[in-house]
């Protein structure tokens, strides 16, 4: 790693070193955990903030986009917690089980922990780290990935939530992980969560991430998700951060055999957003759909970088990602499908589509296939363009005003990835969120 050592550190990198030095003595965990954190920080420090010459971060140059590193958020006070009551309004009133995480800290007293039953258990990450240590918690997560921002999270995350669903449990109420950052003053939040879904279990997990506009707070959120054999899971992440916020999200998912997984990422908020997904299809004959949509305006920058690793035979994955970009915003999609030598009969298709609503908007797509097996069906494609004027004219010729005609076409474009969502409440909420975004345009 010495080759990566760099003499000159950016101001943000120096600040992060200070943050780690002052925070590490009080972070939860035993001596082994402290060592693990120190090693993780060393890995981060050796690589530094990723920049344009780091291929995985090619379009999201954090050295440029993250000039400052904020101080760590403290434990949320009563006022910060109270703000969390309103958090996740998108899914409110739909009977979801809301679990609240404020400034990276799980807040049990404002979370719905009623009638958990035998199938569901919830634990603060802080408690698990203190009693079991990071290594054990991390081992539960199974997936390892080499990424400097993931390392930084490992070094600094103090809390978050652990949700475990027992084998064969069918959890009908969607579980809503509502992450909110109080953002006054602008701080940095490192939060680590773990969702374990047992063999044959069913669940819908939604995550919302939000905070106040006008605050340059920074969130680094990692979710480790373990999906057992024959489990059926929908996981939806809504990144709706405040308009000046930086959000780095990492999903590490390990999926067993004969499972059915629907992953959906919906990004409308934040000034700079990076959602990176490392999905490991460990078992045979699993069906995974990994979809997403970003609706961006002003000068927003949102990067979704997805790695799907087909490690076992016979699985199917479908990646469809849609970007709608207005004003001077920029959407990035990088998708890589790896098919390992043993993963014969893999069927994987990836499609990235961008819709540009202004001349200054930008969409960057980089789909990749890396195939080591010889009996597979794989493909990828990418298209980006403006709204179709012919279609718009057809709608207008029927009396539909221009903005409304555009909205219908945009809804149709994004609808392709929202409509397949199985849970009615989640689908309806996302369609409403899309409508709200479109209303905000006109």
């Amino acid at each position, binding site marked *: 790693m010495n080759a990566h050592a760099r003499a000159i550190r950016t101001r943000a990198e120096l600040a992060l070193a200070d943050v780690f030095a002052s925070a590490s003595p009080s972070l939860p965990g035993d001596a082994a955990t402290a060592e693990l954190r120190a090693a993780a920080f060393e890995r981060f420090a050796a690589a530094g903030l990723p920049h344009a010459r780091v291929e995985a971060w090619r379009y999201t140059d954090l050295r440029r986009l993250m000039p400052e590193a904020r101080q760590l958020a403290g434990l949320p006070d009563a006022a910060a917690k109270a703000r969390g009551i309103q958090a996740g309004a998108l899914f409110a009133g739909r009977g979801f089980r809301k679990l609240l995480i404020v400034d990276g800290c799980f807040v049990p007293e404002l979370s719905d922990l009623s009638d958990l039953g035998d199938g569901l258990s919830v634990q603060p990450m802080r408690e698990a780290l203190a009693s079991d240590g990071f290594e054990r918690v991390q081992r539960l997560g199974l997936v390892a990935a080499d990424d400097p921002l993931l390392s930084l999270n490992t070094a600094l995350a103090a809390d978050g939530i652990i949700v475990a669903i027992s084998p064969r449990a069918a959890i009908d109420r969607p579980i809503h992980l509502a992450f909110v950052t109080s953002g006054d003053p602008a701080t940095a939040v490192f939060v680590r969560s773990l969702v374990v879904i047992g063999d044959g279990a069913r669940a819908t997990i939604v995550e919302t991430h939000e905070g106040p506009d006008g605050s340059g707070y920074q969130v680094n959120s990692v979710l480790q998700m373990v999906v057992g054999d024959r489990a059926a899971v929908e996981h939806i992440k809504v990144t709706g951060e405040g308009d000046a916020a930086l959000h780095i999200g990492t999903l590490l998912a390990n999926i067993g055999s004969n499972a059915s997984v629907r992953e959906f990422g919906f990004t409308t908020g934040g000034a700079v957003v990076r959602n990176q997904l490392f999905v490991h299809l460990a078992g045979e004959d699993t069906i995974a759909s990994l979809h997403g949509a970003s609706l961006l305006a002003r000068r927003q920058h949102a990067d979704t970088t997805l790695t799907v690793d087909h490690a076992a035979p016979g699985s199917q994955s479908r990646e469809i990602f849609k970007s709608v970009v207005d004003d001077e915003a920029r959407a990035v999609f990088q998708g890589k499908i790896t098919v390992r030598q043993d993963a014969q009969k893999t069927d994987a298709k990836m499609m990235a589509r961008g819709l540009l609503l202004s001349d200054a908007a930008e969409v960057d797509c980089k789909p990749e296939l890396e195939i080591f097996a010889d009996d597979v069906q794989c493909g990828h494609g990418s298209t980006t363009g403006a709204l179709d004027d*012919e*279609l718009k004219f*057809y*709608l*207008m010729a*029927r009396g*539909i*005003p221009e903005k409304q005609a555009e909205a219908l076409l945009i809804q*149709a474009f994004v609808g392709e990835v929202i409509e397949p969502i199985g849970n009615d409440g989640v689908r309806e909420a996302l369609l409403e969120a899309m409508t709200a975004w479109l209303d905000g345009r006109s």
Partner: protein
Amino acid sequence: MTALLEIRDLRAEIDGRKILNGLDLRVNKGEVHAIMGPNGAGKSTLSYVLAGKPGYEVTGGEARFGGEDLFAMEADERAAKGLFLAFQYPLEIPGVATLTFLRTALNAQRKKRGEEELSSPEVLKRVRDLAKQLSIDPEMLRRPLNVGFSGGEKKRNETLQMTLLEPKLCVLDETDSGLDIDALKIVADGVNRLRSEQRGMVVITHYQRLLDYIVPDVVHVLSAGRIVRTGGKELARELEATGYAQYQNEAA
């Protein structure tokens, strides 16, 4: 009496090509006008210019619709005022359900006219009744607009829209193209039901066949972007016999 549509010396071009070269046309309420002409005469251009399609530049003349300057209005305003263009090639719009489209269009027009918007069940009822009249499978209404519809289904869908939206002036652009005789009859019956003292129609067609079913009051021959001859319905039969050759010479 103010004409429903009054076009004077209309000149229009696309990409610098002059297509309409001084076209005059007057359509009153209750009248059905047929516009016939050879390929390239400007028939479709006329329909697009009237409906307000971007890319068609009006370089001279005027068109008044119910006394108002048509070209001062956006395409959606023209529609709300009662102009309807039945497309020669109706577009497919994936992801927009036919019924959603119909409800959105109907209510957008009503809103613009200051009328109360209709509830979804009310729209559904109206649409279902019309679908039945036009032998449209109700299942089609749930499908994305025109996606996977046959040529005949698309034209019936255009006729359904036209009936639902109750326009003052219907412009039918080559409605017969791509239709077999059964589909043609269904569409023509639908159009004939719309004939009324309060409504005008401009039926644009290359072939006389359509005019056996939608019998016009007036027939015009369009050639090289101008009306070169006007007559009664017998003119259509004459054209069927003689073809357009003489008009192409005349225009050249």
